[in-house]
């Protein structure tokens, strides 16, 4: 069976619009045809983390999210990753199990002592 050229599978699809009746099917087809496919959308979402998304693309993204909860999750998760990455320095002790070797500690102290004299 040829694949549907728009977001398929109403079963197990938690998106807002999931082709559960005829009007949803019409809307899903329309949105699927006029917004970027998910593979492209994830690239656009990533880029929008680094530069503002043009207005028209923001509208397309919102429409796309109606038929695709996965892209919506993807965007939320990118923001979440940024939020956690920014907090990593505060949690460096927990993040790394590496020991601060005693010899390194002493070498640094020695170098500092030489330089502040």
């Amino acid at each position, binding site marked *: 069976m040829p*694949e*549907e*050229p*728009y*977001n*398929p*599978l109403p079963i*197990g*699809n938690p998106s807002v619009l999931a082709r559960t009746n005829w009007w949803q099917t019409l809307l899903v087809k329309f949105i*699927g045809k006029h917004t970027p*496919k*998910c*593979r*492209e959308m*994830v*690239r656009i979402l*990533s*880029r929008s*983390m*680094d*530069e503002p998304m043009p207005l028209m693309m923001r509208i397309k993204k919102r429409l796309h999210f109606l038929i*695709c909860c*996965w*892209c919506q*999750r*993807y965007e*939320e*998760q*990118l923001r*979440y*990753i*940024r*939020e*956690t*990455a*920014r*907090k*990593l*320095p505060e*949690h*460096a*002790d*927990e*993040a*790394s*199990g*590496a020991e*601060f070797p005693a010899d*390194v*500690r002493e*070498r*640094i*102290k020695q*170098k*500092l*002592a030489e*330089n*502040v*004299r």
Partner: protein
Amino acid sequence: MNDGQVASRWVDDHGECLYRYALVRVRKPEIVEDLVQETFLAAVRGYEKFAGRSSERSWLVGILKNKIVDHFRKLGRETSFTDMEFLSDEFSEKFVPVGFWNHDLGPHEWKPEPDTVMHRAEFWQVMRDCLSKLPEKIRAVFTMREMDGVSSKEICATLSISDSNLWVMLHRARMALRECLEMHWFDTPAGGAS
């Protein structure tokens, strides 16, 4: 306390934290040692500029971040910083041929709430492991952008890479890190999966 004693106390109080932080960013211990040492030296020299607006540790981490960026800048001058090999197929199995997500392989819902997760030491270890799986150049670009908040323009200028290469590298890093966190944390009982 004289300057020497202050510096020695810094090494005792913050050395471990700085060392571990740098090790997440730069995997080579000998380079990490140099970076931490340079950080303390710069701190001693610029101590009068430290107005106490932030904690001593935040101030030292700030200096270390700059040292790390300088390290990558130097690396960027010596070797090409573009790494397009990594994940060149961008997880193509996750999408059906027409380009939509394969529903079974698309992003799962992440629970619990982020704030709860951030208080778990195990989470930060998973984060570190996932970061360490990224190739060095991709990781450097990702951490500069996402951990240090350096602007895209500045990264391109620092590492001499084009805008489009930066976006591709960041996209691949984010995709790989998201996948890794999902697999090793959010889909496990520790991460809240039932």
